[in-house]
């Protein structure tokens, strides 16, 4: 089927999300809480667009709005731009010193005096988009979750203690759009969420590439045993070597 985005027609599959189609066609829609690897959360709301269905326009969240009929989408109307700008005023008021937020706020022309009207906490970097929690859940660890509700909502390990489930994989930090989760790798150790992990050295090149707990977890999950523990690069190299001799040489 086809949909119209900003006046141009595009092909899409039924059930695809508007954001997916837009991104595939290089149409800019800002997001914070979106990751291609994870299902949509719809929490940051920056990706709102207008959808015109049977003559009626409504504001929808493009990352989770499934295309079920041939609708028309407007991604950058004055209304949408205003919503995004107001959202960024609130986000900047929450994380006044965050680089990513500031970049976005600047590009949407957020006025400083609007942000400065509010009490600011300069140490805050988390926008509670929930990507980290989702990633941790998908990882199969579930070491962190959101706690409390309303304005007190936060991301935490259970009771704020080091979580026994945490394997130090730092997938949470990797998906975080605002770099709000500190990961410190130092002297063969990683510290994250108040817990320390031993780092694993690649048995080939010697590079520290993951925590020992993470490696153990990954092998157990995949149900395989490896003779050697290798970093991603060395693993790729070793499988290439194997592939090279997989088939007997054919003389032409």
């Amino acid at each position, binding site marked *: 089927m086809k949909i119209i985005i900003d006046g141009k027609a595009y092909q899409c599959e039924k059930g695809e999300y508007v954001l997916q189609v837009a991104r595939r066609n290089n149409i800019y829609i800002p997001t914070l809480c979106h990751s291609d690897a994870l299902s949509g*959360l*719809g929490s940051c*709301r920056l990706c709102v667009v207008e959808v015109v269905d049977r003559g009626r326009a409504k504001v*929808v969240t493009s990352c989770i*709005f499934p295309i079920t009929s041939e609708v028309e989408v407007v991604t950058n109307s004055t209304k949408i731009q205003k919503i995004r700008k107001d959202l960024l005023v*609130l*986000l900047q008021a929450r994380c006044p010193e965050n680089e990513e937020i500031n970049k976005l706020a600047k590009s949407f022309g957020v006025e400083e005096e609007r942000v400065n009207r509010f009490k600011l906490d300069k140490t805050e970097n988390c926008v509670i988009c929930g990507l980290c929690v989702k990633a941790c859940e998908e990882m199969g660890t579930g070491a962190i979750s959101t706690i*409390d*509700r309303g*304005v007190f909502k936060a991301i935490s390990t259970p009771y704020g203690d080091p979580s026994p489930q945490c394997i130090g994989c730092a997938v949470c930090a990797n998906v975080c759009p605002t770099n709000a989760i500190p990961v410190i790798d130092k002297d063969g150790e990683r510290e994250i969420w108040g817990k320390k992990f031993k780092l694993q050295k690649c048995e080939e090149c010697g590079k520290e590439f993951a925590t020992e707990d993470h490696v153990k977890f990954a092998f157990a999950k995949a149900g395989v045993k490896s003779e050697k523990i290798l970093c991603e690069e060395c693993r790729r190299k070793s499988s290439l070597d194997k592939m090279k001799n997989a088939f007997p040489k054919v003389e032409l």
Partner: protein
Amino acid sequence: MSKMKTIYICCGTGCIAKNSKIVLAEFNKKLEELGVSANVEGKEEEKATGKMKPTGCNGICEKGPVVKIEPDGITYFKVKAEDVEEIITKTIINGEVIDKLLYFEPSIKKRVRHFKDSEFLKRQHKVALRHIGEVDPTSIEDYIELGGFEALKKAVLQMKPAEVLKEVTDSGLRGRGGAGFPTGRKWNTAASIDTDVKYVVCNGDEGDPGAFMDRSIMESDPYSVVEGMTIGAYTIGGTQGFAYIRDEYGLAIENMQGAINTARERGLLGKNILGTGFSFDIEIVRGGGAFVCGESTALLSSIEGKVGEPRAKYIHTTEVGLWGQPTALNNVETWANIPIIVTKGGSWYGSLGTMEKSKGTKAFSLVGKVKNTGLVEVPMGTTLREIIFDIGGGVLNNRPFKAVQIGGPSGGCLPEDHLDIPVDYESLVKADSMMGSGGMIVMDDRTCIVDVTRYYLNFLAEESCGKCVPCREGVKRMLEIVTDICEGNGREGDIEELLEISTMVRQAALCGLGKSAPNPVIASIRYFRDEFEEHIKNKRCRAGVCKPLTTFIINDEKCKGCSLCKKNCPVNCITGEIKKPHEIDIDKCVRCGNCINMCKFDAVKVK
């Protein structure tokens, strides 16, 4: 010997709080001591004259405990244990009426013998609340005696599911939880999906401040809800039901569980209902008391054992609901309406209410600064003025009316010139308020609208799920601004910023709760903008509520020197001789407002 009299003692939550159980025990004791036999419909123990059981809420909680004596047709209010002996010797034995315990009807300035003769009840039309105060909620016999389970029999034995659906659709019944989605359409979607497992859910997570309709229905008439849900399941092909009740509602959970158990024992619930082969059962899920779990998708998440956060409703829960299955989710009051719609027919229900889109009746809990606090049910389209002044008896202490808050945190405060709008879904939305679940809070001139707005924002700041940015951060910042205004730190441009954020949150929030979260702000500014401006520019709170913006003074001409204010001042800052004008020492005054509340001559003013 004269006919056996029955004494009905209200054991709803309101009356229990006012010691109705002590009154009940006293009745049992005194009846035995005096050797009088009468049925006491209350609670507690077995007695020789009959089984003791509670009756549910009579609606007028403020005047409880309520004692009804039938067949004499006498209703007594505010009954204390000391009154019991007199009631027995005078009324039960001699049939005399004790005047001082009767209801005082303000419109005719007389006491009325039977509560049914009061304006409070005469103007109401009880449909959803039809059994409340009339039956013992723990007795299935009481319920059956009043026609209970006739509707279920009619539905499963004589009607096809499609025929039941037609009646519900024809009735025009819309969701009583607030948003008002047509129940028939909801059920139709769920019924049209061909799958083995479908769910029926009852939303008993009533959370609006001041609202207690659903609580009363579950506490006082649980069988109606059970019967309604069973009919719903039969109609859509539901296999399992869940009643999600907030854990704070202990008595509601107890009575609902009792009703479910008894209905199951009698073959009205469970496997092979009424021998028809139709099976359906209900399980109670106790909610943790998060306001947001009253939102349908959050409620379903919560039943599934996940964090109670809403999701976008681009695919409706009727199609993909609980555990991904089609789900018919309705509010308690909606379910309680179903049996009577099936019995009397959809067109009967549709004849009540407005001619347009709001059919039937709606229950409200009328609270705040109003004379008759309690539960009322009126046909849709009744005006606010009728509800507040005719049924409610007007503003407490005859102070000037200022506003009425409808729709809880998703609604707004409406001013006096809106009192003549009919109460229906569309009119309220047009006025920037909302039907909501039915909380109605009356406010007088001693209520500061800015302070009320702050209260609702504070409620929402704590009770939003916090998932999406507009609702969490938007409410937080609006609260910050409004708090500043209340504390005298409001700035030029604050009203505009409030409106800017409100508009955005309304459009961009994830769920219904978030989208309606700015309503208290938008409605308050729309109707009481001058009060906001007065707070910001003149640093004055005309209601005398925001302490930093309040200065109380005594008007020399009006003050009679009665010294009542002086006696009640906690910091002794009022001076003056008897019969001479008094004076407040502003430097010592803590702005508690005792003086203005006490003064009978309207002499204390806000400067």
